């Protein structure tokens, strides 16, 4: 085990897979010579050379389209879209082409590719460089959607995404890049579609994703220490496939669910989770399902405003207390 930052775990995960499989190639804007605008891909050009680690022009359609064409003809490309907000300029390739072509062709081809992107707020970048768009991807049949919260999961889930035979949208939360954690030195692969239970609890289940996970953990500690409320915390990790088994089991035990979502309110992933819980284990519930989300607004830039908009540990605590008390 070594302590790595979330950003260094990105290059560690990519390097692990590129060493293993010569068909893994990597392309994106500023990812090679510059090592990425978030410095998450430094060293890869030196180790794997310019045939496998390729800088591209600012051409998101070409980047994602090239990854698709390469994936359908034998390679396993990793494409980077620098900020997830930029998916809006290549969404045809993602949502119409990559996601649907396997189905439309009756399974004649597969698309083993990963599109990584820096997602989410907390960096004071304003409304076009801070969005949480994982729910855009979740709404499209044919895309797998992964969002790690720790350096170890960055490496392990990225490795699994590269090995997966289907297209994976891999959302790195940009405010987590500097965070540190223990990461296995050896080959590390975490299966997709498994939520992780970070903390057991008896009163309420808090389900969170990416940057909301540490906030949910902090909230759970405050709830235990200050209010005697026992909260389970689940890191959802993968929206598609969604580990409903683990989540339903815990919500069934605690009788309450609070989701913590960075995305704006409408059609966030927590709404889907709430509907599954309501349909399938309604009679096990002891209270309403509560969603803590960013309000349904574009994200503001100023630190005071952005902090007020994003779910905080304090808001989670308040939501849980209202539900449990």
């Amino acid at each position, binding site marked *: 085990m070594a302590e790595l930052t979330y950003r260094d775990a990105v290059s560690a995960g990519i390097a692990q897979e590129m060493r293993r499989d010569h068909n893994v190639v990597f392309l994106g804007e500023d990812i090679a010579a510059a090592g990425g605008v978030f410095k998450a891909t430094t060293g890869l050009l030196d180790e794997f050379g310019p045939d496998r680690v*390729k800088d591209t022009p600012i051409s998101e359609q070409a980047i994602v389209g090239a990854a698709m064409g390469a994936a*359908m003809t034998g390679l396993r490309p990793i494409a980077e879209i620098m900020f997830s907000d930029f998916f809006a300029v290549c969404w045809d390739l993602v949502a119409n082409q990559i996601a649907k072509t*396997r189905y*439309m062709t*009756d399974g004649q081809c597969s698309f083993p590719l990963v599109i990584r992107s820096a997602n989410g707020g907390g960096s004071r970048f304003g409304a076009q460089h801070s969005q949480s768009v994982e729910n855009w991807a979740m709404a499209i049949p044919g895309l797998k959607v992964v969002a790690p919260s720790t350096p170890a999961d960055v490496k392990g889930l990225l490795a699994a995404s590269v090995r997966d035979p289907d297209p994976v949208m891999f959302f790195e939360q940009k405010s987590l890049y500097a965070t540190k954690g223990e990461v296995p030195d050896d080959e590390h692969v975490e299966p997709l579609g498994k939520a992780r239970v970070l903390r057991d609890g008896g009163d309420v289940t808090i389900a969170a994703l990416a940057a909301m996970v540490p906030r949910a953990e902090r909230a759970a500690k405050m709830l235990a220490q200050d209010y005697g409320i026992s909260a389970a915390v689940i890191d959802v990790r993968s929206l*598609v496939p969604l580990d*409903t088994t683990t989540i339903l089991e815990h919500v069934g035990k605690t009788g309450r669910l609070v989701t913590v979502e960075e995305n704006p309110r409408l059609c966030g992933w927590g709404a889907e989770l709430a509907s599954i819980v309501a349909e399938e284990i309604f009679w096990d519930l002891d209270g309403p399902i509560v969603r803590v989300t960013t309000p349904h607004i574009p994200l503001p830039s100023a630190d005071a405003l952005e902090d007020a908009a994003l779910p905080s540990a304090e808001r989670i605590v308040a939501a849980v207390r209202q539900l449990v008390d």
Partner: protein
Amino acid sequence: MEEGFLARTFPSTSGNAPTPIDDDLRLKLYRMMLRARHMEQRAYDLFMQNLVKGTSHLALGQEAVSTGFAAAMRSDDYTFCTYRGHNHTLLRGASMAGILGELMGRECGLMRGKGGSMHLTSVKHGAMGSYAIVGAHLPIATGAAWSAQYRGTQQAAVCFFGDGTTNIGAFHEALNFAVIWKLPVVFVCENNMYMEYTPISDVTAVENPAADRAAAYGLEPVLIDGNDVELVFETASQVLTRAREGGGPSLIEAKTYRHGGHSRADPGKYRPDDEVAAWLERDPLPRYRQRLGKLGIDEAALSKIEAEVEAEVDEATETARNSPAADTSIVEIDVWADGGSAWRN
């Protein structure tokens, strides 16, 4: 070569002579064009009988482009085409009954009814898909060419699109990308002069929508008569050789004309009668038949091909008509590579 057409040849860097056009090849080209023509005429008849549902976009009149390229391509090359892609898919080797069956929503369809007219695909024949969002497949073809370059297979990708595509961003992104990485991809603009219902000249800054943009990407402008099947074949052979030898991408503008409207819903009445008449005079099929006659090819050989193609189309039609409706048990399969569509456990 008609007046007003530019032409440019690409000498092979290895000095290989281009494939000579002999009589066998000529008969093959004639048969290929005829198969495409008769299949699409039959598709039209099937619409009129309400046996084809949804929309469909015919390429009647444009057969020389798909034929010339398909005949010049290697069997492991990649074709990427548009929703007007019945012929491109057929001529790479896909089954005619599979194509007609797909149009009719039958079990025997190329994709068993999951794709329809606008998405014909036969990966085992190198027909890597028909793409229904204008421009999308240019970056995808570029990626397939990148893969071929990386794997060192000397395969090439050929990407067909219409004149309207030259005004969408993906066209420009893909061209620039293919040039900077020197990829083995051939971009073929089939300029049929109309962007759906609108003359391309009304909505385009330059006269020749593809050829006049070539210089912006450091490419030679190539404008050819897309109704001359041998010229298309020769051009295709040259640019494919260039691609295989590492010479990078090419952009070809082939001028042609669709005999019908944009889609099933469009009678194409916006086109002046004299323009339509002039282009019907240049219909690639009678034109080539006449040329073959002048070259001394036996009339009996041509008639034999015509009879065989008619029989093939009849048989494919019967196969498709007799095939049951698409099987609903496949609705929820093959979203994922494991064959399923599960999004939760």
